[in-house]
């Protein structure tokens, strides 16, 4: 390995460029337009995720190691059988925004040309299908008109359903920096929750979940009444549909928002999952876009609607058409000639002739026994889809389930009959497209582990067994073919055009610099787009399922700052787990009733339930509860929230309504609460409720609760971590239900087991740190059982992940006189790394504000 590799961060839709040095150290690429050298905590930790335990290294068939040949034969045979028995539509692919564009392209071609079905959908369906549908309705094509710079150039930035601070940290940093440089700039956050992003907001509109459409309809009416609208196709109908829209918001807040929007021509409305994941997600997108179309504030510097995706390559998937309602390269069935052109180009007489099943429908079909063969790539539907229990049952029903993944440790891989080892970040080669249409290279710089291979290769091998020769010798060839597809059936209105890449040499591909599409000719690249646009009527409507006396609260799901998806990668990084280390459900204290902070609570809907630790949070809007979607069987089986999420979908985009499920929250009385720290992960069935989390030094934390007598559980847990030639230090207070133990060998800490009758247990961080010690002397052993040093205070959670600064140290700095972010940064280095913790530092500053203000 020599020198530095330029690549792209694989975590979120910002798509930051990274530089990887010879030792795997990762820094931001100053030359990349998305981040200009910045990185967030996830990106910074990329180097730590390179060596992942639990990699899938060899193909497996029916649970046994197999050769690639045998496994590919089995996959081909499975598809052949399904095709013969049930026809093309009994086969399916379920892929992911984690795939590179080339893999995506191969998967799409395999489904639509080889199998002859459009049953290929992606987890992007969960993320931004509504935005895609909204774009298509408004622009006739899936286009994001703006670029990131618009966020910096705008005078007003409206963030809708977007916790930018956590979900798109680098973009958030850019916004914060712009606002700091130009304080006249305003930020409005439209979100039911008071998220960390609200920290920079001049106004937080705590919309009632599901009323975003009403809000933007009201805005459209207001803009029209103010004489700010210009003629646009569909405007009259949109106004008619909007009539009477009345979002329930504090009138002064609403009025201020309407006035700001009306009087600020340079306005960007950025929307993401919070808007998309709704049974009216497409309408939300269009209600937003309508306001920009009607005012002509689109495709101009600092103005436009801006959909931002969650996944690194959701855009790439959209571009190749790897969704069931798209064909390929922005071609579709509806436009005359496009299907024929593609069928001819691919020489695919059986090219799928109509849209296929969307994610939720697809798994419903599988559950009904209508899918004979499915290939899942780089995603974990057993966890991430709503009504997850039904999805699991569906996966089990599929006679031939293939899973391609880099990890063996995924709930979906568990269920697969055939497992194919895929390459991970740093190993694979290809391109991704970020949310501002910039195509960047992901480059491999590490040897392929075990027998892992690129997904495109596995796909073309199976295709070959089914009689197709894709003829690719590498990703560059696929990329050229992808570019060629965008040139078919022209002349046409289609903006998506990669004609300039059809002749890209392998060397040019290898050296490809970040390039924004459209690329109509070599060396040309795109900028802002001003598509032909129309307004779309979006009558406000309530979420699919209303809250009721039985299910009085509305469940929102979302993600955590430092975690990615179902944690198969980030879950292994202690530094990232340190931020919110336990499955928590947040709720406003007023909704808590008899429920206590820190207790376990069951979040129950008509579809299912999950058990998480309750966090009472005044920042939550009353009436709503929030749970993160990351937790899986691997980490916290009982805390998987998706079984409780309703399967309602947007009728146009098919995107599930992840942001509104009527639920109730019930206490879960447990006989004991506890945790185990050990040098290896223990099974997650260790207790009725368990969550396991990696810590530094290769240790694992297991949060547990159960129903048997504490003493019985204690004996069981000790047995689970017991090791030969090791000795215990234990503390038992049977009457109080308190039991604690530490296991050591030659003074080296092997495990800690702590149980109590209540959730109030010693802090884990400090204990976890002791696993690094070579030798723990006799006096310190008692401290193990205390969970704190003999005379020291109890340690506090980590806030700044980059510099490992705890809440306690920050609080101490504030107490010591630091009264701004900058001063806290000087005193502790907290917040001076990626900056994603700054909102939390601000929260600590705010908490202390009255004290700081008082002269001591």
């Amino acid at each position: 390995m020599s020198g530095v590799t330029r690549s792209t961060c694989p975590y979120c839709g910002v798509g930051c460029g990274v530089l990887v040095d010879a030792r795997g150290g990762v820094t931001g690429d100053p030359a990349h337009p998305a981040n200009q050298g910045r990185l967030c905590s996830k990106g910074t930790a990329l180097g730590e995720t390179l060596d992942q335990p639990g990699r899938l290294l060899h193909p497996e068939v029916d649970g046994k190691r197999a050769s690639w040949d045998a496994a590919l034969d089995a996959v081909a045979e499975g598809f052949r059988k399904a095709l013969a028995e049930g026809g093309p539509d009994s086969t399916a692919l379920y892929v992911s925004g984690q795939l590179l564009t080339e893999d995506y392209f191969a998967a799409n071609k395999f489904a639509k040309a080889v199998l002859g079905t459009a049953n290929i959908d992606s987890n992007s369906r969960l993320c931004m299908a509504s935005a895609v549908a909204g774009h298509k309705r408004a622009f006739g094509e899936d286009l994001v008109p703006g670029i990131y710079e618009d966020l910096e150039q705008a005078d007003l930035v409206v963030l809708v359903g977007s916790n930018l601070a956590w979900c798109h940290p680098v973009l958030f940093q850019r916004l914060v920096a712009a606002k700091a440089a130009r304080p006249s700039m305003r930020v409005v956050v439209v979100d039911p929750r008071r998220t960390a992003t609200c920290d920079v907001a001049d106004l937080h509109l705590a919309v009632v979940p599901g009323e975003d459409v009403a809000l933007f309809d009201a805005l459209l009416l207001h803009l029209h009444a103010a004489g700010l609208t210009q003629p646009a196709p569909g405007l009259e109908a949109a106004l008619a549909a909007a009539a009477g829209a009345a979002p329930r918001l504090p009138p002064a807040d609403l009025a201020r928002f309407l006035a700001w929007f009306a009087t600020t021509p340079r306005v960007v409305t950025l929307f993401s999952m919070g808007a998309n994941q709704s049974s009216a997600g497409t309408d939300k997108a269009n209600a937003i876009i309508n306001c920009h179309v009607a005012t002509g504030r689109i495709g101009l510097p600092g103005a436009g609607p801006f959909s931002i995706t969650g996944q690194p390559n959701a855009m790439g998937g959209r571009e190749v058409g790897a969704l069931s309602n798209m064909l390929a390269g922005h071609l579709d069935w509806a436009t005359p000639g496009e299907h024929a052109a593609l069928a001819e180009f691919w020489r695919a007489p059986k090219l799928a002739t109509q849209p296929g099943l969307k994610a939720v429908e697809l798994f419903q079909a599988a559950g009904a026994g209508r899918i004979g063969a499915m290939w899942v790539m780089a995603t974990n539907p057993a966890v991430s889809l709503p009504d997850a229990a039904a999805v699991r049952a569906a996966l089990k029903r599929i006679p031939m389930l293939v899973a391609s993944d880099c990890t063996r440790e995924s709930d979906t891989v568990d269920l697969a009959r055939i497992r194919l080892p895929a390459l991970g970040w740093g190993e694979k080669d290809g391109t991704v497209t970020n949310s501002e249409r910039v195509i960047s290279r992901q480059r491999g710089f590490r040897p392929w582990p075990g027998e892992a291979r690129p997904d495109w290769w596995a796909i073309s091998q199976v295709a070959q067994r089914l009689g197709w020769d894709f003829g690719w010798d590498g990703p560059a060839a696929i990329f050229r073919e992808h570019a060629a597809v965008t040139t078919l059936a022209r002349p046409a209105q289609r903006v998506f055009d990669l004609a300039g890449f059809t002749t890209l040499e392998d060397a040019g591909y290898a050296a490809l610099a970040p390039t924004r599409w459209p690329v109509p000719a070599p060396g040309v690249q795109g900028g802002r787009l001003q598509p032909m646009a129309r307004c779309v009527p979006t009558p406000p409507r309530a979420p699919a399922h209303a809250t009721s006396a039985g299910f009085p609260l509305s469940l929102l799901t979302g993600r955590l700052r430092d975690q990615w998806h179902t944690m198969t990668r980030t879950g292994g990084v202690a530094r990232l787990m340190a931020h919110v280390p336990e499955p928590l459900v947040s709720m406003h204290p007023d909704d808590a009733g008899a429920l206590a902070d820190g207790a376990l609570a069951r979040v129950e809907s008509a579809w299912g339930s999950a058990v998480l630790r309750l966090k009472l949070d005044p920042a939550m809007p009353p009436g709503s509860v929030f749970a993160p979607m990351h937790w899986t069987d691997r980490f916290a089986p009982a805390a998987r929230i998706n079984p409780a999420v309703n399967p309602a979908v947007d009728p146009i985009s098919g995107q599930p309504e992840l942001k509104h499920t009527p639920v109730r929250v019930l206490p879960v009385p447990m006989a004991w609460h506890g945790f185990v720290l050990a040098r290896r992960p223990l099974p997650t069935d260790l207790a009725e409720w368990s969550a396991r989390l990696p810590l530094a030094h290769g240790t694992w934390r297991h949060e547990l609760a159960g129903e048997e007598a504490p003493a019985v559980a204690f004996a069981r847990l000790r047995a689970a971590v017991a090791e030969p030639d090791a000795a215990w230090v234990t503390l038992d207070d049977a009457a109080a239900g308190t039991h604690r133990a530490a296991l050591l060998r030659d003074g080296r800490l092997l495990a800690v087991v702590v149980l109590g009758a209540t959730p109030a247990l010693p802090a884990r961080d400090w204990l976890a740190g002791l696993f690094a010690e070579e030798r723990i002397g006799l006096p310190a052993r008692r401290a193990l059982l205390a969970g704190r040093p003999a005379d020291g205070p109890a340690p506090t959670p980590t806030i700044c992940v980059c510099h490992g600064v705890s809440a306690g140290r920050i609080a101490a700095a504030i107490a010591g006189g630091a009264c701004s972010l900058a001063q806290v940064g000087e005193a502790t280095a907290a917040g001076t790394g990626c900056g994603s913790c700054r909102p939390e530092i601000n929260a600590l500053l705010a908490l202390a504000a009255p004290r700081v203000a008082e002269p001591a």
Partner: protein
Amino acid sequence: MKVVVVGAGPAGTRCAVQVARRVPGAEVTLLGAELALPYDRVALSRLLAGEVEVGDLITHPILALEAAGIRFRAGVAVAALDRAAQVVETTKGERIGYDRLVLATGSAAVRLPLPGAELPGVLAYRDLGDVRAMLRLAAEGGHAVVIGGGLLGLEAATGLAARGMKVTVVHAMGWPMDRQLDPEAGALLTARLGRRGIRFVMPAATVALEGERHVQGVRVDDGRVLPASLVVMSVGIRPHVALARAAGLQVARGVVVDDAMRSSDPAIYAVGECTEHKGRLIGLVKPALEQAEVAAAALAGDAACWQPVPDQAALKVSGTAVWSAGEISAETAEAIILRDEDAEEYRRLFLRDGRLVGAVLYGDTADAGYYMRLIAEQHVVESRAELVLGSSFEAAA
């Protein structure tokens, strides 16, 4: 004022010294049956183990007693009291008058009335004479049996083992020091002493002592005969009350005293192991000395009142730290237990109504004073887990 103290053990000697100091013009006479200067009985075990010499045991050299104004007479045993005449009569017929009398006759080791109990080589463990006799026999090596695995029995056993004897302890309960230790601490102690070559036969009762002219073995109730050229009986103590009873003082198991250590005769006080206070006997030196102080104060005309604190006991065997205090029966109390296998440490605290009432420390007894204080203070314990971890975790709790 003429004050006569009968018995020159720790309690009697302390009382004599204090009276001499506190009562102006007092003529203090200290009479001791043992032919020795006042010595530290508690340290006999260390003498037996060879850690100190006889001379080191002397607590009050004759010059010091003289300087304190005390007339000390060793080897003088009192045979009778004439309360009407306020006179004591020694075994040699000498009569000594008193204005105030202090009985500090201590207690005698119980000797089990077993067949063969009078054989030479069967000893009690109470005084210097006993230790001298043990050392003579131990010098010949061979087997020793200690009957009774209480605190003293174990000290005798380890002492004799240190002197090169093969020692077996016969104990009636399933674990040694059952009055001070819970079974788990007892088991740890058994194992530890076992590694020093001390064998335990328990639970077992001694049936007879065998031998013709000298003891040769100990027969236990399972039929075994344990070889022994030396047998030490350490099965408890009984207060010396014969004098008091004969004189018509109120006597139960011990000489009954009030809070000021006065017997039923206002001119006669009693202190130390010979007393019975509110139905309870004492068996340790600390309360004995406290009583001696209280009696001296009362004699000096000061208001004085003895307030017993819970007993604490420590095993004085080098390399084994064992301590217990207060109530240690688990039936009525809640237990908090700390164990460290590697360090061979163990502690069990006993709580009732949230208050510390007893403690057993094994292996590390540094926190003995801390727990003693908490037991005495009777405060409700705030954080129970920290309590068992010891005083160093107290502050930040």
